[in-house]
């Protein structure tokens, strides 16, 4: 954390900075046996309020590390990261973001309802309000009626929807999603992508979304960040001109295919398939 600028110089969270995430010169190295490995090298990025930004790239490009640093789950080696105008640690302590992991990570001894209330209990939200939130967000992810079920009674897709409802339940303005649909089959994933887009439109949240699916990235995002490994870096940032209201059919349009093509070109340029 010493590499970060003095947090007191950062704008206060109350002023609602337009930039929700600001990254400058971010570098992360891991000490391997012989030489340091650059998980991320000199990354700069700014995410504006209300954006849906996808990070795409092959494994080892540091996209998950980037997200985990924003969430204070890992520490940077150098550079500056501001989340909601605060250091990641302050943002975490202020519960400024919700994090959806690759696996649902539901607690098996809690019913769906109790899993949703877990963050609410920790944050001290009154019981009456908890019940209202459970209903609102389970309905939002189409899991109404599953309150009393236990995680093992749900399919993988339903579990991941429950974990999204859990991240929404304490109503953060910012969502970090780390390949949330990576383990699901194509059909379920399409369906959840549509739901996520609707949810994003309804709640006006800012979403940082890690994926390695090109169609998913293009379908969901207002901006796509293409990354490449060794060292992990950003090689292209693509602003999407697709309308905010989208249906799955948009994937057949020339505009969609053009963006997808540019993503693919970026991935190809940044990645040598010989190693």
């Amino acid at each position: 954390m010493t590499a970060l600028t003095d947090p007191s110089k950062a704008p206060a969270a109350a002023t609602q900075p337009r930039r929700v995430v600001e990254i400058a010169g971010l570098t992360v190295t891991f000490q391997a046996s012989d030489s340091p490995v650059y998980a991320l090298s000199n990354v700069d990025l700014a995410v504006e309020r209300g954006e849906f930004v996808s990070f795409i790239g092959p494994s080892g490009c540091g996209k998950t590390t980037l997200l985990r640093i924003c969430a204070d789950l890992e520490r940077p080696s150098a550079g500056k990261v501001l989340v909601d105008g605060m250091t990641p640690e302050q943002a975490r302590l202020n519960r400024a973001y919700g994090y959806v992991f690759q696996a649902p990570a539901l607690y098996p001894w809690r019913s769906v309802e109790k899993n949703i209330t877990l963050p609410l209990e920790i944050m001290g939200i009154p019981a009456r309000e908890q019940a209202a939130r459970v209903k609102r967000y389970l309905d939002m992810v189409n899991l109404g009626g599953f309150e009393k079920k236990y995680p093992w009674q749900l399919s993988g897709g339903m579990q991941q929807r429950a974990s999204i409802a859990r991240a929404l339940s304490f109503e953060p303005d910012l969502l970090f999603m780390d390949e949330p649909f990576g383990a699901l089959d194509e059909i379920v994933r399409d369906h959840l992508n549509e739901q996520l887009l609707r949810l994003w439109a309804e709640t006006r949240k800012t979403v940082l979304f890690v994926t390695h699916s090109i169609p998913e990235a293009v379908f969901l995002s207002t901006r796509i960040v293409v990354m490449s490994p060794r060292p992990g870096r950003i090689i292209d940032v693509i602003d999407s001109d697709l309308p905010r209201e989208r249906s799955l059919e948009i994937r057949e349009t020339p505009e969609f295919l053009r963006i997808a093509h540019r993503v693919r070109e970026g991935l190809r340029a940044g990645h040598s398939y010989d190693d």
Partner: protein
Amino acid sequence: MMTDAAGLPNTPSFLARAWGNAMAGHTLPVLVVLAGLLVVWHLAAIWLNAPWQIDQFARAGRDWNLWDLALATWSQERPLLPAPHQILVELKASVLDTAITSRRSLVYHAWVTLSSTLLGFGMGAALGILLAVGIVHLKTLEKSLMPWIISSQTIPVLAIAPMIIVVLGAIGLTGLVPKAIISTYLCFFPVAIGMVKGLRSPDLLQRDLMWTYAADHWQTFWKLRWPSAMPFLFASLKVAIAISLVGAIVGEMPTGARAGLGARLLAGSYYGQTIQIWSALFMAAGLAAGLVVLVGAIERIVLKRMGGGA
């Protein structure tokens, strides 16, 4: 298992169904082993009790054949090894036919032992859990306590029990508490070890989740570590309650205690009352089995309420 039933007449008779049920569950295998044990036991009784019996026959100048010998060895008053039915008769006499307030009642003795078993178990479980909580949260405690916890169990309980009784007796503590402390000494160990493992069982993802909620240590403990540890806790408690009983019995032996299954065992061996020893032994075994089953039942209820089923 259905093929066995199919070999019988088409309309499944009561017998066929009973056979099917026996084959399906554990009943039949258990009965077979039991029958085998009984045969070995009876033969061993003849073998061990025969020399004295043959001597008796000779003194009485009596003719005897093998069957006479067998019957006689199974009904001696003070056999080296009593036959099972002799133990059952003694058990019936001392459990059912004696008022439970009487010193001759085995129920009375079992209760004395049970009360110190339960007290020792309660204290041991609490101590084990406290140690585990400390060890999981403080690195220094792990480094300083863990070697002592492990080496405590390398000292045989038979060596340490008399010392505990004597030392506590010197400061005026006698009766229930010293025995319970011996049980505690034995049963805190599996609970501590099991709970350290259990409290550490949440995976990285589950802990990361708590971290992103900025949950404090207590919240992480009560909402994540404690519930995760439940299966480990019950596995440990089953071991702990059985050895707690052993501790209580051992605690009754070196002190000349007048009551308890341990005292009963010791008195039996002083006076050559082997039947009394064996019936006390059966009582102890039954008590241990009952306690383990009880813990298992509580485990099922708790885990079911925690959404068990997977």
